[in-house]
């Protein structure tokens, strides 16, 4: 049984000119212990589809799916209260802007203990001990003192470590990382990616890595889904995606990497197609 199985997910938003389809019939499965990367440019619907899974979209969004199963449980049939018990505990998410996703009014210690209190019901001492343990696990120096820090007193990389600590606080079965390193420097990016991958191997959780960076995909993923304008263009394991991309769009993306430049000019996506690329035949099946 797959850890997460989504069939034919569609997300629509109402705009002045009618309904806008942000995600158009995307199907995704993640197995236990697997690292799935979802790649796409901005507006490809990669974040929106995962926010729909998390139930974090505003109520104005229209979400439909044939199936949305987590460990065989139907997500759509769950009451909001039951769903909230699952989210943050069994499914956790890390966001792009670490500094913006932490609450500036509370210490990071309070924010991590909040998760432990609500989901695990630990008492004060156990919460504190576990928080210190988690901070040590994600490599924050002086965890005891760090608990009393506010987000603005820490660097971006440290805030992202706190976010990761909060996300893994309840040993989630599935971790969704939405561009976890985009706002960080290359050297810090390496540290954070190493940390996430290390935690993933140690705990055996499923991991969905949302990114626009082909380098991050190459360094982390087992399997890759390529999205464009809300549609799935291609799905393949990481090696075949880079070695032998099936869809035009993937080929264009790989050719646009500066390190793949041949001659003086970079190939741009428009060199491959105008407007809407056709997905590879397998991808739609």
């Amino acid at each position, binding site marked *: 049984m797959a850890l997460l199985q989504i069939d034919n997910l569609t997300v629509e938003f109402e705009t002045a000119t009618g309904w806008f389809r942000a995600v158009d019939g995307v199907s995704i499965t993640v197995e236990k212990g697997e690292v799935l990367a979802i790649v796409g*440019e901005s507006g490809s619907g990669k974040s929106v589809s995962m926010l729909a899974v998390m139930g974090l979209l505003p109520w104005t969004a229209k979400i439909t799916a044939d199936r949305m199963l987590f460990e065989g449980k139907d997500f759509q049939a769950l009451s909001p209260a039951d769903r909230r018990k699952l989210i943050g505990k069994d499914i956790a998410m890390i966001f792009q802007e670490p500094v913006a996703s932490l609450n500036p009014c509370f210490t990071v210690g309070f924010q991590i203990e909040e998760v432990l209190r609500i989901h695990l019901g630990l008492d004060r001492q156990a919460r504190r001990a576990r928080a210190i343990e988690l901070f040590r696990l994600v490599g924050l120096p002086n965890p005891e003192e760090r608990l009393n820090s506010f987000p603005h007193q820490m660097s971006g990389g440290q805030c992202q470590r706190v976010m990761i600590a909060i996300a893994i606080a309840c040993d989630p079965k599935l971790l969704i990382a939405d561009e976890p390193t985009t706002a960080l420097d*290359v050297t810090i990016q390496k540290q954070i990616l190493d940390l996430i991958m290390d935690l993933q191997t140690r705990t055996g959780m499923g991991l969905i890595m949302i990114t*626009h960076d082909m380098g991050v995909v*190459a*360094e982390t993923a087992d399997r890759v889904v390529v999205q464009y304008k809300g549609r799935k263009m291609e799905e393949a394991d990481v*090696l075949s995606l880079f*070695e032998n991309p099936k869809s035009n769009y993937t080929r264009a993306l790989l050719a646009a990497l*500066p390190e793949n430049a041949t001659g003086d000019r970079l190939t741009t996506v428009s060199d491959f197609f105008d407007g809407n690329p056709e997905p590879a035949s397998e991808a739609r099946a």
Partner: protein
Amino acid sequence: MIQTTSDTMTENTMLEVRDIKRDYELSGGLFKPKKTIHAVKGVSFKLERGKTLAIVGESGCGKSTLARMITFIDEPTGGDLLIDGKKVDTRAGHLTKEMRQKVQIVFQNPYGSLNPRQKIGDVLGEPLAINTDMSAEERRHRANQMLTKVGLGPEHYNRYPHMFSGGQRQRIAIARALMLNPKLLVLDEPVSALDLSVQAQVLNLLADLQDEFGLTYVFISHDLSVVRYIADEVMVMYFGEAVEYGTREEVFSDPKHEYTRTLFAATPRADVDSIRARIAKKKAANAA
């Protein structure tokens, strides 16, 4: 021999920076003493006409401060700045109009660097209105010409910034920087806010414009793959100092400083061989 300006500057040198420094003073509190932050601790380099110098480093290393000094936004606390063979008097009120026109800047975030209440035509016309006595009609003509040059069209003249995508906005920011025919363009992370496919288009555009106008670029970036593609010379900065400086081939094939090597090692690699190596490693770890 005492070196004078004319000795070190050849005909072809566009920009020379000698031991430039910038300190920021943090005012102390009641019980806290004043603190001085040395953002740039004496950087020197020389850049030839029509070439591109890339400055690489992590946030807080002083690369943007250096850019601000080259574009006269910040006054250096020490050192000399020579542009087009002339020493620049950077004290407030001493800068000539002519010097200001020679150097322009493009910022990182195209969403923040354009005034949301200003039409694109006015964005492009404003530098001309301030620095020249061109008629409105001629300004309009020049703005439309520049729009075509950067891959947009006259139909965009009357639109507002929010009607454009990130890549288009960065084109507008580049067009604005070019309105006064500058010789030196400082690009402060011009593509890091853009998608991969758009990034390629903007980089191509920058290469085309460099050929057409004979521009000299100072290109600030933290993305080594972009730097490798666009730069002639590379400087790596670390805590306000230039720890590595040389031609692209020198720096990429034989990095001297420890930090440069760390930087290279941290850059994710997207080639098939390294993916294979990673998968093999993972399999071995799982089997064990």
